[in-house]
């Protein structure tokens, strides 16, 4: 390409480029610009106000030697893997059940989707009561005659993540179900007929034929669920507030507490940079794989 062509190239289709300008600016300034600003300030010792007072990797040193951060990461990993798998599996099973042309499907769909209409804060408070040993499940089961029944996950460091998981799944599975149900409805009736003619059992048809065909729908669910997992914050605040002890802390909460309670912006920025990095490590290979796949098509 010669140098003479370039300006022409830039000016080609000018209205479209102008129209895209706000989007490009937003992406550059808000997303990339602010992220860079955060990363730069994570190398400073900013306290309450951001200051460019560089201290090298000190904030990261401290971050990775803080037990609370390490516990947070571990919790997020456990919660994330369990939540991801369980919400997809449960969501698909529910969607498949709803897809059996049952009566009152609308009613069931509404019931299943309903928790999603509640915020995580409300979800957390509701489950705090349900899991409270003096008022909730434990009390009810004991009332039925099982005097020694113990179910108190909110005050047990080993079980508290399950409490979070139960509440999180209760709230989030409905959405996955509905999206997957839409996906199931998109499967051509003829495929089912063909499978039936060949005498393939329904479960096998789901596993071998339907699920592979629903790959884009699963990808959407995956992205929605993972985004919800990484930013897990409000549910923890409402349900356990990180307790008992630090057993249910999460990275997002660490960031918030460092920035605003401890008045240590530098530490909070370092932690959020690590969160960004984690997301990039997961998303970049996936995105590359996806895009390359498309180009080959």
């Amino acid at each position, binding site marked *: 390409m010669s140098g003479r062509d370039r300006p022409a190239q830039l000016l080609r289709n000018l209205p479209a480029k102008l129209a895209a300008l706000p989007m490009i600016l937003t992406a550059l300034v808000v997303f990339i610009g602010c992220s860079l600003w955060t990363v730069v300030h994570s190398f400073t010792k900013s306290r309450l106000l951001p200051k460019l007072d560089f201290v090298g990797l000190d904030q990261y040193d401290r971050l990775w030697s803080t037990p609370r951060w390490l516990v947070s990461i571990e919790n997020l990993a456990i919660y994330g893997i369990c939540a991801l798998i369980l919400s997809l599996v449960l969501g698909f099973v529910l969607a498949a059940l709803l897809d059996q042309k049952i009566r009152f499907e609308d009613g069931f769909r509404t019931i299943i989707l309903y928790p999603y209409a509640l915020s995580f804060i409300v979800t957390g408070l509701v489950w705090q009561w349900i899991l409270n040993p003096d008022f909730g499940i434990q009390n009810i089961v004991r009332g039925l005659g099982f005097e020694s029944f113990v179910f108190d996950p909110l005050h047990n460091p080993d079980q508290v993540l399950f409490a979070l998981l139960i509440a999180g799944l209760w709230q989030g599975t409905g959405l996955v179900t509905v999206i997957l149900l839409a996906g199931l409805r998109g499967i051509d009736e003829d495929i089912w007929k063909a499978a039936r003619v060949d005498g393939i059992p329904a479960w096998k048809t789901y596993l071998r034929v339907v699920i592979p065909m629903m790959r884009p729908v699963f990808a959407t669910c995956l992205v929605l669920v993972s985004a919800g997992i990484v930013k897990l914050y409000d549910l923890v605040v409402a349900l356990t507030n990180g307790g008992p002890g630090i057993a249910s802390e999460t990275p997002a909460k660490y960031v918030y507490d460092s920035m*605003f309670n401890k008045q240590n912006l530098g530490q909070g920025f370092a932690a959020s940079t690590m969160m960004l990095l984690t997301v990039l490590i997961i998303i970049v290979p996936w995105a590359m794989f996806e895009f390359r796949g498309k180009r080959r098509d």
Partner: protein
Amino acid sequence: MTHSTMRRLLAGAAMFCTPMMAHATDLEITHWWTSGGEAAAVKELAREFEAKTGHTWVDGAIAGSGDVARPVIVSRILGGDPMAATQLNHGQQARELIEAGLLLDLTDIAEKGKWREIVKPASLLDACTVDGRVYCAPLNIHSPQWMWTSPAAFEAAGATPATNWEELKAAAPKLREAGKVPLALGMQGWQQSYLVSGLIIAKGGKDAFYKAYRDADADLLSGEMITQVFGELAIARDLSKGGNVQDWNLATAKIINGEAGAQVMGDWAQGEFAVAGKVAGSDYNCFIGMGGDPVISTGGDAFYFPVNKDAAITEAQKELAKVILSPEAQVAFNLKKGSLPVRGDVDLAAANDCMKKGLETLAAGNVIDSTEQLISPDATGQINDLMSEFFGSDMAPADAQARFAEILTGDK
């Protein structure tokens, strides 16, 4: 509604409004005083302010503890949407806001009102002063190191009522047998941190307290005495098992109901006892510190006034600062709140036994700085995290001690 009633109402409204019309300003005031006793105290302050100045107190209570409210307050100030006045604990919390020029300089009011002379102990005003300028109006003195006991709980268990930490430990087995929790403790780091400072004072007195929090003396922090403190903390962890409460006022409720033996909590707990109609000395008992020589920590609440563009608001802010230091407001507010006034010259004849104990200690000059004045919010937060971790797990006392020392030395 008939025509005449309407007119009468309007006339009434006019009469109510006219005297204030001239310079009435709405002041939005944020604070985190939301428990029963605290809310009653705020009402007194608001009434006093409105009666004296004719301005309007727009209450901006933020529910939750200071840990919830402070971020909201600070982000509003930083974000350019400042309230007219706000509660903060004096100390290092607001220092950077002052340095950034976001808080109103009250030096002229302070000089006119002779705050230097009336505020006792003077360290309270020092905590408001940066480079010789005054930036906050101290409202009360709160000492976090108090122990509250429930005589009813000890009686029900057939144990001798404890008057200090050692006696509580001795009575603990009997309390347990009777189904009482020996130590009511909210499972939040800041509440557990009071046990640490309380125990350091109990074991090592004033000197040890300053050596630990102000000087971060490495020898002391790794020494025998602090080891003992963490040993006691491990005992406190056992004594508080089964309490299952988060908020301090719910822990206090256990004392009020006689379900728990003792609670270590600041003197604001007194407001809860007052709201419940309990009498100091018979329904509940109070002890400064955890036994040993009584020492009052002079932390507390102060009002800060974010810089405002509106001159009318600035004027009203200064009037509020005057009201806060006025003897009437000091008495009315602190009696309800259970805290001590910041001026030594007001008459608190109506004070109950517990407050009188505090006042005597204050008058005798047995005071120390609060930890908020000595260490940064960062270190405070880290100690709180350490405490939640310690109390929420079976962490070894020695490990906790090592980390405690690390946090304090790292803060200097």
